[in-house]
């Protein structure tokens, strides 16, 4: 049975939307190219958990195979930057405020912030950088930014080990509360994942925005109290906003887990956890809402 021919104008006629839907229902076909319900999306994500891990490994390998020193750079880079910051802010400008162990204060903040900014940067480009994969395979797209965050968490482990060594070298006593250090990193990872998911959708929709991401991270670098204790330089409601914005409060949390002069403060931890859960939930839903559009551009 042949229909049409070389001279046919326009497309051949076919089923109307209603007829197609009825036929699909009768034979149990699923519509594709539409956003799945949130529940099914989460279930799908869970079913792909091994794939998330594979993608995280793949990202790690592809990032480190092109330079000989590989992982060494992930320690060397923050160390060198930390040295520069120490010279400028610690010695030249004297922003140490009331802090005694400024080296540990600075490196704890800086290393954590590098983790946040790298995760945010990579996650925001997760869709755009993997267009080939998105157009070749079908899987819940939220896997991409999530895998990126896992990659980043693993890639930063050597730097965090270096941070522990530095803390001990500058006179911090290892104590029970150091057990909370990994927990604080996980919460920080949640915060980063949340903003990363939001950024990934926006950057996919309007790629030019990716130019704003480095600017945004630089601004956060200056206002989040990496090389100065916020409490000593700002007060009142401005101080409160600066201290409890998601990034700054995460840095404080990491410092509380490591440094003797910063006792554990439940407010810091609850606010951080709150930010982590809320931002990840918002980011996930925001990302999921545009699921059907990924791959088009």
């Amino acid at each position: 049975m042949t229909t049409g021919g070389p001279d046919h104008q326009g497309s051949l006629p076919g089923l109307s939307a209603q007829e197609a839907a009825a036929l699909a229902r009768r034979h149990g076909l699923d519509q594709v190219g539409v956003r799945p319900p949130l529940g099914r999306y989460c279930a799908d994500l869970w079913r792909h958990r091994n794939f998330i891990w594979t993608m995280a490994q793949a990202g790690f390998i592809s990032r480190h195979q092109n330079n000989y020193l590989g992982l060494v750079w992930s320690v060397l880079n923050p160390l060198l930057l930390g040295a520069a910051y120490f010279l400028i802010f610690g010695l030249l400008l004297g922003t140490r405020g009331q802090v005694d162990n400024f080296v540990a204060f600075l490196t704890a903040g800086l290393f954590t912030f590098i983790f946040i900014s790298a995760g945010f940067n990579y996650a925001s480009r997760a869709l755009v950088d993997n267009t080939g994969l998105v157009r070749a395979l079908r899987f819940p797209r939220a896997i991409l930014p999530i895998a990126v965050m896992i990659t980043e968490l693993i890639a930063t482990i050597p730097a965090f080990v270096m941070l522990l060594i530095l803390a001990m070298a500058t006179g911090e006593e290892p104590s029970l509360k150091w057990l909370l250090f990994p927990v604080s990193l996980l919460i920080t990872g949640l915060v980063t994942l949340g903003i990363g998911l939001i950024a990934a959708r926006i950057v996919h929709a309007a790629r030019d925005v990716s130019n704003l991401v480095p600017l945004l991270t630089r601004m956060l670098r200056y206002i989040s109290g990496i090389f100065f204790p916020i409490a000593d330089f700002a007060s009142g409601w401005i101080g409160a906003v600066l201290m409890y914005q998601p990034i700054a409060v995460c840095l404080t949390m990491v410092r509380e887990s490591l440094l003797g002069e910063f006792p554990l403060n439940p407010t810091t931890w609850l606010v951080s956890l709150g930010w982590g859960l809320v931002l990840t939930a918002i980011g996930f839903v925001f990302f999921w809402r545009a699921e059907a559009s990924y791959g088009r551009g």
Partner: protein
Amino acid sequence: MAAAELSPDNGTGADRTGQDPTPAVGADQDRVPAVILSHVHVTYRVFGAGRGKTVPEESRLARLLNRGANQVGVREVHAVKDVSFVAYQGESVGLIGRNGSGKSTLLRALAGLIPPDQGEIYLNGKAALLGVNAVLMRQLSGARNVMIGGQALGLSTHEVREKFDEIVDFSGIGEFINLPMSSYSSGMGSRLRFAISTAAVPDILVVDEALGTGDAEFRKKANDRINKIRESAGTVFMVSHNNATIKRMCTRALWLEQGHVIMDGPSGEVVDAYTRWVEQQQAARAKAQQAKRAQPRATEDPDEPGGDGQDEAGAQGGGR
């Protein structure tokens, strides 16, 4: 045994079952539809192509967040226009048409990879797509790509490991499996992708120009595998510029022209009509050129509307 009955050429099958032979409208009650498309339009964005459309006045925020945003340097290509058809289990459908006629985009859309702007696409089961452009992660080894592709297609880690040797064996790339895919020849890459995509026996297999590469032995293996998928009530779609391939491997063919499906029927008939039409176009073009040469002041080459390769850049660019 349903499979054998379900995989006739389109025409004879309809006659034998005594059904109203209207496959385009999909009235067959006996056959199970695998893919239903209803008035599908697909547009994709090409970056760095200059402004294609004037920007409608919207609020800045809306423009920023709009998923189809008409940004600077972005051009929208309306690649598939108002396409409707029903494909059944056990069918293998070839898509033919000139470069840039929307074949690859249509394949991606029906694999669920590029969402349609308008219209609905329904699938019975899971689709696997492999194509020349289906880049996995080029900088990673073939072995790792086997894991990525296999898991994305729904296999567990264990299942991928189990099938690993078979995949490598089928693709015939041997030692290269541990080298990055960027070091593969195009034939090796597409053979590996074919092996990965078919390892899971997909319900719907979508093949984009992948079988042209590879030697005779591999083509035969691929042919066998496609037949096996059809026998297990799967459906195969393929794009090929090799008309003999379409005739040999497909039961049905769709002819696309500028995003429209203009002919639908048994592969032999459609391919023959297409071949005749292309020859006519070439003859007409040759005539026009002769006439031009006869004139002393020929200015410049005309934009050949029928030229193969003319729209290749656009079609391929959209695939990335």
